[in-house]
């Protein structure tokens, strides 16, 4: 089992596309933080000098990490079909549940690492900037919950990605459909029909990572965590089931 997890991490480390994904995540985090800082208070958006304003800045990069690790999770499964490496993988580990679990664990570990890196990048830029703007972030009230929620959401999205990848073998289709769903369909629902949107994965993840109690649109943080966990468990069960039975030809 241990060997399989290490093999999955090695698969990740030994391709160049993974490095690009990590680099682009960090870039997206910095852009997100900077643009939120720059536009805070404009056109009726929350001003910087409020708790919500500060937390908006801190969580600005959260979705980038979640999105990237979600795609990495999908690619971790579907890439094996795309490049036909799944045959060798299952020859080495014919008990397929072991492979799926190893991919889940490896992706969560990567998600946590990416989450820590994103949080560190966010803090490095946002904390001095906020202090300079006269809206210093409070460590326990602002930084800890936002960073913790971001980490949790990123790890859960990794699991969700592996599960989706196990369900849909076609890599292009799996990534394209998921992105359209997450970035367009869900975002619209979260924005315009929050009564539905907050129950969807993106809404739940936003609740988990932005930690904005009192804002009526999203679920409370704990409920967001539970809802996201439920989605993850449902997809993971279905995905594992499909991957275990399917012929590899």
């Amino acid at each position, binding site marked *: 089992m241990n060997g399989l997890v290490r093999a999955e991490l090695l698969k990740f480390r030994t*391709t160049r596309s993974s490095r690009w994904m990590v680099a682009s995540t960090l870039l997206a985090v910095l852009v997100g933080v900077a643009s939120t800082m720059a536009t805070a208070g404009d056109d009726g958006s929350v001003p910087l000098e409020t708790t919500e304003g500060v937390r908006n800045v801190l969580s600005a990069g959260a979705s980038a990490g979640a999105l990237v690790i979600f795609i990495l999770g999908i690619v971790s499964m579907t890439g094996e079909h795309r*490049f*036909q490496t799944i045959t060798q993988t299952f*020859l*080495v580990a*014919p008990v397929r549940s072991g492979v799926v679990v190893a991919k889940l664990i490896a992706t969560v570990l990567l998600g946590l690492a990416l989450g820590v890196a994103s949080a560190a990048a966010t803090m490095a830029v946002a904390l001095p900037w906020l202090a300079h703007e006269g809206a210093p972030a409070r460590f326990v009230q602002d930084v800890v919950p936002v960073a913790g929620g971001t980490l949790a959401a990123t790890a859960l999205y990794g699991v969700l990605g592996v599960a989706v990848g196990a369900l849909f073998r076609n890599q292009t289709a799996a990534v394209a459909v998921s992105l359209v769903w997450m970035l367009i369909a869900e975002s619209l629902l979260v924005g315009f029909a929050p009564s539905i949107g907050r129950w969807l994965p993106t809404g739940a993840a936003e609740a988990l990572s932005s930690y904005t109690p009192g804002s009526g649109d999203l679920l409370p943080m704990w409920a967001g965590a539970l809802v996201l966990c439920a989605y993850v468990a449902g997809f993971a069960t279905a995905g594992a089931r499909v991957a275990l039975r399917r012929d*590899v030809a």
Partner: protein
Amino acid sequence: MAVIEVEGLTKRFGEVEAVAGLSFQLGEGTVTGFLGPNGAGKTTTLRMILGLVVPTSGRATVLGRPYRELSRPVTRVGAVLEASGFHPGRRAVDHLRVHATAAGLPAARVGEVLEVVGLSGSARRRVKGFSLGMRQRLSLAVALLGDPRILVLDEPANGLDPEGIHWLRRLLRRRADEGGTVLVSSHVLTEVAQTVDDVLIISRGRLVAHGPLAEVTGRALPAVRVRTPEPQALRQALAARGVTAEVRGPDVVVAVETDSETITLTAAGRGIVIYEMADERASLEEAFLALTATNAGGAR
């Protein structure tokens, strides 16, 4: 005990029966050539033996167990399968490290198998730039990682140059001589004929022949080669007795599905002189065509 045992193995894909009630056993110390026309079910059979495809019915076991229940399977069976690939951006050495890590094998094995397949010099190159033959060698390297006694190879000679084929042949021979079991499919029959002890021929998912190479080729097309000064006369005389014969040269007639007694009697009756007579062994290709054509029946 049979090393690989297949019993009533059947696989249906919708309406199509790819493999239909196939049964055979492979023992130790043999190289078996697995032959059949395209679409005969070879790859599906190999994939069922290796637990990648679930049989509709019947079973396939390796060392008495289904592949999926083997502990540390790569130390027992090494496989090269078609439609098995590489991440193009990964270096050859990293590809092997991934599998060695997953299988819990010592990292030193990676260097050893690279040496064995002759890829040490290209270990740090990305697979993207590999030729078909180099990819085939890398596949073989993966198969050899666990130093298994059983090898299951689907078209392993694809893309190999003559030197590579020679090397592969010696490798398979050595495995078998050490008591290993090798099952190798190939469509290059002359290639197979030089390497294997036994042949296993299937057609449309069914077993057509399984046995020592000489036996299978002999049974397929028993033929007698006759040297005579009057080949045309002998051919006509044999034809009159219902024996098919063919003139192959100024003094040679080859008669099929008959024996030397019949030919001698026929020739004596017509006063035809015979210089020399010998059983002619059909080539594997002729045997293969004869066996698979009969079995396919009206389908062709």
